[in-house]
């Protein structure tokens, strides 16, 4: 009798169905997440780094960003493609020329970048030609006179298209 009951018990256990997981709610979450991420997807493929100390102005513009040299300007520092080229706390002996309109370290760095792009183009046909595009990531508190110096320096270095990077109005 005892043996029999064990055998029947085993049979009962084996008949138990595998519990199925209800993944409906998980799927709901995934779909919502997918829609949200697709909405915030950046198709331009350009990574813009906004250094500490720079507050971008808000704008109604909806124009996507373009590739080019990135010049980040805070009240204290200037970066070109994330590399500090001028720190106002440690000014070099000669910072400005052309009657104070041209920023020498910025001009030198931009010229170097331009020459490098041209050299790469010479070496490979597949390389993109020098576009002359400059992306300005500028702090909103800076004044027009300083902005004018930046634009003048960029123009002198051969950059003909300025792109002012701004923050979308809803953010």
């Amino acid at each position, binding site marked *: 009798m005892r043996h029999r009951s064990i055998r029947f018990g085993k049979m009962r256990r084996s008949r138990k169905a595998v519990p199925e997981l209800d*993944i409906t709610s998980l*799927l709901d979450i*995934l779909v919502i*997440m*997918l829609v949200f*991420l*697709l909405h*915030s*997807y*950046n198709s331009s493929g350009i990574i*813009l780094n906004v250094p500490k100390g720079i507050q*971008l*102005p*808000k*704008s*109604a*513009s*909806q*124009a*996507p*960003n*373009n590739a080019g040299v990135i010049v980040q300007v805070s009240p204290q520092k200037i970066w070109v493609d994330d590399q500090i080229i001028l720190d106002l706390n440690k000014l070099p002996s000669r910072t400005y020329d052309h009657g104070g309109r041209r920023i020498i370290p910025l001009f030198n760095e931009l010229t170097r970048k331009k020459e490098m792009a041209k050299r790469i183009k010479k070496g490979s046909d597949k390389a993109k030609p020098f576009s002359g595009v400059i*992306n300005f990531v*500028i*702090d*909103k*508190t*800076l*004044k*027009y*006179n300083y*902005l*004018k110096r930046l*634009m*003048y320096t*960029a*123009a002198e270095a051969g*950059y*003909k*298209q*300025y*792109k*002012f*990077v*701004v*923050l*979308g109005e*809803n*953010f």
Partner: protein
Amino acid sequence: MYRIPSRRRNKREDTKLNLTPILDAVFIFIFFLLMSANFIKIFEINSNVPIISSKSPPPAKKPLALTLQISHTNIVVMTGIPSVVRRSFGKNQDGEYDLESLHSYLVNLKKRYIQEDSVILEPLVNISYEKIVKIMDTVRTLKNTDDALYKVNKSGIEERLKLLFDKIIFGNLMS
């Protein structure tokens, strides 16, 4: 009288969809999007370097040469070569430039010069970059509440304009 439902039909088991591969794909997609997601929307405003040309404009076509002179107290709208003052916009009670009136004026101007899309900005004072961006927005964007403007494109089809004067040039850059 209703018939008793057949037992054979009831015995049929529901076929369940195998969601595993779909879920795998969705997960990979989500990770990819999370990596490339841009939670802060960053855009740009385009501006070109002013080019000084000794060539005279074509005689048949009179350019608008829209210029905005920004001073401490007002924004002066000028057009034509040589420039003629059209209108001046002062500041409102909050001490800010009256950009709403300026925008309405520019929309009306655009209706008359639909082919024109350039504007020259000449800040005469040391205003902040934030204020310059606001002025650029006023000059270049068309709001949903503005009248619809249409322009005939190269293929002869009328298309609705999305921007007002979007080619911004800083006129006094080299001075």
